[in-house]
């Protein structure tokens, strides 16, 4: 056991929890917001930290804590996410596409197509890409959150990115096709 972790274990649980909360609340909140939308993110994040408080003694040491916390978030969000999936997609899309400061319309169009392409992927693919690109987790952390081997993370990410690109390219070519019809508003 490292000197630091030994010291941490001697701290009162409340202090240890405070450290944990301060270091991770923002990332966990964003994780939840990405999957549930802003309105439900706070409650879900609060659930995550409530679980963390109750399982403080089970928590791994050091860097593995972050992955452990994301794994809890993955479980907490999972139940809500599935039933609210369509709504969350809508809310996250709205948050993205109504950004008034976005001056790059072409980029905004690409991002919109990319999010549409992302929506069309399997749930596993979406989660892998979000964990990697949005939540900034390492392959080790992703492996822990999803309960798979690290090598599998690499392979699955590779495939997910390929599939995302295929769908994105298809949307892109449809959008640029002269026969493409705009859907009436």
């Amino acid at each position: 056991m490292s000197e630091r972790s030994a010291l941490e274990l001697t701290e009162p649980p409340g202090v240890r929890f405070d450290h944990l909360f301060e270091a991770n609340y923002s990332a966990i909140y964003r994780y939840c917001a990405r999957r549930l939308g802003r309105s439900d993110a706070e409650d879900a994040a609060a659930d995550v930290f409530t679980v963390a408080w109750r399982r403080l003694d089970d928590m791994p040491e050091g860097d593995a804590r972050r992955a452990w916390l994301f794994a809890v978030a993955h479980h907490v969000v999972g139940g809500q996410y599935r039933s609210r999936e369509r709504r969350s997609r809508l809310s996250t899309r709205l948050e993205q596409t109504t950004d008034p400061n976005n001056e790059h319309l072409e980029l905004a169009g690409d991002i919109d197509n990319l999010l549409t392409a992302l929506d069309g992927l399997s749930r596993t693919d979406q989660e892998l890409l979000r964990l990697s690109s949005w939540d900034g987790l390492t392959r080790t952390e992703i492996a822990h959150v999803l309960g798979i081997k690290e090598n599998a993370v690499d392979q699955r990410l590779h495939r997910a990115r390929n599939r995302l690109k295929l769908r994105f390219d298809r949307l892109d070519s449809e959008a640029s096709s002269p026969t493409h019809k705009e859907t009436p508003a």
Partner: protein
Amino acid sequence: MIELLERADPAKDLDADRGRLRGKVDERIGLSAPLRPPAIARIRKPWLIAVASFAAVIAVAVPVALRTDSPSVFAPSLDGLAAHPGVQAAVPLASGGLQAMDAEDDTIWVMTTLQNVLQEVSAESGEVEATFSIDARVEGLVIGGGRLWLISPDNGGEVLRFDPERGAVDLTIPVEGVPGWAGWLGDSIWVSRDQADVIRISTEGEIVDTVPGELKGGEGLGYLWVSDPDTDLISSLSEAEQLGDMVIPTEPGLETMSGSGIRQVAEADGRLFLLDGDHPWGTNLNVFDPDSSEFGAFASLTFGLLDLIEFDGYLWVTSSSDHLLIRIDPTSGEQHRYPLPGKPAGLVVADDALWVTLYQPGALIRLDTRADLIESSPIVADDWNRFPHRLLCTGSGDAGGPTIILQPSDWIDYGSWSVIQAELSGEGHIVCANGYVEGETTPKQQAADLEEALTEADIPGPYLLVAAVDGVHSARLFAAGADDLAGIVLVDPMPVGFQGFYDDLLPDLAGHPPWLDLDAELSESLDDLGDLPLTVIEQDPNAVFLSPGFVEGFGREAAESVDAYWQRGLAFYRGLSSSSRSVIANGTGLDMVTWDQPDLVIEQVLELLRR
């Protein structure tokens, strides 16, 4: 693309209200509110697992590694297997989770993982010689030094030494890490650990040494082969623990997969062939020539590649997703694809023949590789590069008539139809097996995907739908939106709401997906198909819910209740059309009809075509 994805993050500029969030957390902690339970992992087909579990309990409720009389009370009928072209023998095994096998001379050892049953089969007689119960989850099996070495992830990773003479595990060796591939070389067993190093264990059970790297399956050119986790290169491992006599330049950037993606190796024609088990786009069989030190792409096969061995001058590869045995000429690269009558799990050579274990149904089959095996028909369309799901269409279309669509279910994926597809294609029909490569989906999504795939691949109607078990839901939805449907064959169809009913009856086994609102999903399907030709192939109740195993496991009252619900569902399906007929698949059911009686399915499809 990655950069654009990062920019698309909808929450990248989002800040939590720290004070309010902390307030909510403190409130919940202070109130000691009951915890929200973590989402229950989705269990597919809980009743199947339940039946298998009871079968296992009945079969293996004996002390460790004692011989048992019966491997399984739920062994399927093997009528369909024995009649399959090229199958010389079909040995019923304990069903469920066949994951490990090895052979020496004319003896084959098979470990059925989910049931913890080890079986000894004589390749000469095709009979099960002995069955042993092993008190561990075993995921690997290697023969060497007159013993069996069973690789288990239990207790932090261990190797069990099994003495076939005594029929008992006589030594347990902790390996302190997650074991992976294992192989026998020289006088030792070599086991991959934590994908990081390879440990060498003597016949006495002592860990002699460790070498860095991750072991691959198989052997070739007199070596085992490992990939270096730092460089991702594959190098040879000699009996003298010497690494790197040969190093294969498998670095990323080549057309071929990196070293970490290589699954198995085999030697043929003086060269080393390397199989990438899961590389859907591009080459997944590569070759290394030790004379020139050249490494390159050799063949593009398909998904779900499991095993690679050399036999009779050819390379043989199994695909668990396509249910194929692929024969490859190591010189010319010519391929022949043989549909297997089940989902393969292991491949060995014994008694001068190829033996394949079938995960579904639980069986070991001996193949006559020189016989006229079924040859897959020409591929009309294969859209695997365009969709996360797959539409594989075969056949000449010479027979005319509708295109036959084989619709998947949870456990009857597109490879499960391989024999039926091959036979119907052979009759001159165009037959499309539809299915998902990975990921979860819903009936509505499946129906939409099928429509899209048929349009994009330009597969002509009219269509004859063949749907199994819960694939019936997506088939009904597809039928509602199709105006060129020639008929429907439902194979062992699952009643609407059955999963929920089952979960309510046996809540301890509940595992239905909470995210799927089936009523909403099916709101657009039709309850009246008019006079559309419809055939319902029904499971045999006496082989499933009223079978002795189920009744013993759950009690007669529950068994009869489940069966009554199922029967009401069948009546509903029969009533969908005024032109319906039904047949019972005697002796089988519970997802097994396509495995046990493929001939019945073929016969009923052809009958409907004639109607």
